[in-house]
């Protein structure tokens, strides 16, 4: 009998326990609302924040801060339910979604570390960024500002967080007004501030700080459909030190002056690849640099681009985008730009007599890449036209008496070239049709193109290798042949002596002959006139 009683008692206890559990499962916590009880992820199950709600929905407890301030811990569950994070939200939040880390909120709760309510509020602002990873940045000081820190909840509210629509309606503008009055900000009427919110929240005063608030963060990337990624992290210092920065004579160019169509949140980038993106952005430069931009449209790079070579250089490939420096400072800078793509040619150039002077002596007289090839309207150097006109290019410097005298270089080089076989023919070709193909030697056929060396260079100088040079075009030339070349010397007693003497001979004989013949003709005419008159 006793045994039976014990079994029944045990069963009753089990049932009672199950009953209590079942009962607790269904107890309505706040008002009559039922959706609150359902977890968003698992409808029909008890929400995980049930414990929080059990206490915080109805309590007189208060938090006391070291500053002496007190904060009631009761949360108005109805306001919370109707807030932007409440049950009407796409993803309703639970208490622990904001009140993290979870360990701090176990019962008994960890003590609050903040000094005051304000400190606490600002500390809690950080939690918003758990979800709002790209918070819109205004020109408000952030929560870290030592003087007037502003946190998310100051404007948006906390448990009563407003929706975007409510803010646009002006429901939250009182928050703005309260603060602005407190810190004596000029614009503080409600109408005014509501208007600012409606027109896209401070877009009228987008500063670089606004953009850089996100874009100065490291490791930011933009990914394209084809898998390309470009860094969208901007070096604020380089930007400020660029030609568009502080030192820009017309004032610092702000981010939005180039990136004008950008809004926050940014519209989706629709091009396939990073390179295509560069091309779509390129015309931005033309807004200020119209002349230079137009010149590029005739350049060899633009032609390559038209022919489908997407790698052909556009503005930013040479000048950089955010770190644009002055292309002539230092003097080597522009050539280094070309090196980015034309590495092999650059290396040849750098070892040439011109390149060495440029890089080792900072010589400002030597031709840099752009001096010969042009800046924005870079011509195709492989055309007949370029070839046939190239001697004039060299003559620009090498026929300049003032410039050449600094280096003790003869300026006869161009005249003597034109006076000789190759130069005469090239001159005539150039006059007749500058696009004609010619194999007649131009300066660079003998002296080299990018790898020009001093004529007396011990290794590659043309002086000691003249026969080899001649044989490039005249394969049957023999040892005597190089002497046929007058080496750019005008004939004189010292150089090309025989040529000089022959020239001298005719310089005497021709006038003498002309004088003699004219004398004979003259006397004959005299005779005819005299005898004719007498007759």
């Amino acid at each position, binding site marked *: 009998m006793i045994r039976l009683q014990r079994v029944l008692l045990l069963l009753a206890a089990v049932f009672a326990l199950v009953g209590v559990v079942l009962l607790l499962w269904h107890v309505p916590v706040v008002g009559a609302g039922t959706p609150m009880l359902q977890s968003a992820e698992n409808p029909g199950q008890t929400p995980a924040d049930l414990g929080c709600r059990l206490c915080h929905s109805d309590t007189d407890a208060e938090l006391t801060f070291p500053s002496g301030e007190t904060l009631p811990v009761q949360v108005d569950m109805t306001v919370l339910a109707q807030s932007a994070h409440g049950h009407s939200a796409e993803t309703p939040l639970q208490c622990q979604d904001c009140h993290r880390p979870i360990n701090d909120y176990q019962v008994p709760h960890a003590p609050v570390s903040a000094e005051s309510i304000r400190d606490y509020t600002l500390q809690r602002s950080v939690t918003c960024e758990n979800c709002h990873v790209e918070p819109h940045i205004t020109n408000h000081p952030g929560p870290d500002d030592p003087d007037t820190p502003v946190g998310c909840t100051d404007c948006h509210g906390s448990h009563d967080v407003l929706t975007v629509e409510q803010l646009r309606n002006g429901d939250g503008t009182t928050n703005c007004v309260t603060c602005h009055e407190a810190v004596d900000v000029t614009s503080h009427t409600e109408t005014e501030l509501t208007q600012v919110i409606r027109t896209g929240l401070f877009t009228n005063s987008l500063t670089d700080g606004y953009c850089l608030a996100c874009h100065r963060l490291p490791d930011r990337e933009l990914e394209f459909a084809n898998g390309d990624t470009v860094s969208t992290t901007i070096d604020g210092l380089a930007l400020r030190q660029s030609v568009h920065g502080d030192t820009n004579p017309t004032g610092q160019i702000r981010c939005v002056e180039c990136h004008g169509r950008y809004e926050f949140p940014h519209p989706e980038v629709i091009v396939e690849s990073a390179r295509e993106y560069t091309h779509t952005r390129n015309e931005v430069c033309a807004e200020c640099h119209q002349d230079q931009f137009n010149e590029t449209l005739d350049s060899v790079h633009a032609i390559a681009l038209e022919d489908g070579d997407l790698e052909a250089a556009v503005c930013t490939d040479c000048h950089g985008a955010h770190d644009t420096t002055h292309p002539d400072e230092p003097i080597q800078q522009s050539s280094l730009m070309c090196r980015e793509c034309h590495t092999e040619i650059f290396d040849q150039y750098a070892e040439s007599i011109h390149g060495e002077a440029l890089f080792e002596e900072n010589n400002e007289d030597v031709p840099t890449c752009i001096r010969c090839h042009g800046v924005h309207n870079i011509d195709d150097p*492989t055309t007949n036209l370029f070839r046939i006109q190239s001697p004039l290019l060299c003559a620009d410097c090498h026929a300049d008496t003032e410039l050449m005298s600094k280096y003790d270089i003869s300026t006869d080089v161009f005249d003597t070239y034109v006076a000789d076989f190759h130069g005469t023919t090239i001159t005539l070709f150039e006059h*007749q049709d500058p696009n004609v193909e010619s194999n007649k030697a131009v300066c660079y*056929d003998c002296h080299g193109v990018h790898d020009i060396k001093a004529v007396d260079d011990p290794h590659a100088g043309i002086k000691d290798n003249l026969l080899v040079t001649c044989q490039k075009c005249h394969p049957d030339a023999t040892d005597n*042949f190089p*002497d*046929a070349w007058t080496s750019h010397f005008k004939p004189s007693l010292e150089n090309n002596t025989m040529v000089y003497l022959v020239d001298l*001979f*005719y310089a005497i004989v*021709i006038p003498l002959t002309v004088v003699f*013949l004219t004398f004979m003709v003259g006397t004959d005419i005299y005779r005819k006139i005299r005898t004719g008159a007498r007759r």
Partner: protein
Amino acid sequence: MSRREMEKFPRFRLMARIEHIILLVSFTVLLITGVPQRYATLPIAQGAIDFMGGIETVRVIHRAAAFLLVLGTAYHLFVSAYRWFVRRERVRIMPERKDVTDWWQTVLHNLGIINEPPKMKKFNWGEKFEYWAVVWGTAVMVVTGFILWNPISAAHVFPGQIIPIAKTAHSAEAILAGLSIIIWHLYNVLVKHRNWSMFSGKLSRDIMEEEHALELERIDAGGELWPHEGGPIDPRRKRVFIIVGAFAGIIVLAVLIWAFTFEQTAITTLPPITPLP
């Protein structure tokens, strides 16, 4: 027209007239195509070259005319040598002491210092001067022109400096020849008289009297019109001439073929040698 003007005296054989036409054509073409090349940097020269079809065409024409000149010269050399060596004709074009006195008397007569002009033979001092000037000029132009046409083969045999020397001489000699022809020859045959004897072969009594008085006196005295033709031919000399002439001809031809085929790069247009990136 008076009888004196009607009366014509034979002066040049047909072949001499043909030689002259060859020389006239080739010389004129050479001068017209050559002088603009000498002054290639002058706009007027460039315009002339353009007008003639561009420098490449001008050079082809120049070389074709040079070829014609050389052919005429070669013919003249062979015929002259034949007449001198085989037919043993007197070479009347050779300068002699009388030419100097004739020249001096011409000057004095022109100036009115003496009344009588010198009496001159078939070829007077002026014609001899002009003939030998053409011989000298042609020799210089043919040799230097050949060097310029074949610089690589020329430098194979001669020092390289021969090429700029040849260029200087070629262009200076051209000016000398051109000026001489314009001042002297054109004055004498077109201005002083309209002398067409190089085309008609005959010369009027007037001009004969003025320029070849001795020759006229000889003919008037019953002398032969072509006194040097039909002399006896020595068969031995003829044989020597044929052998030496053939030999010289073959050697010259061989040298020409060697020089012109030595290499091509100086005259043909190859693609530019410098590869561009």
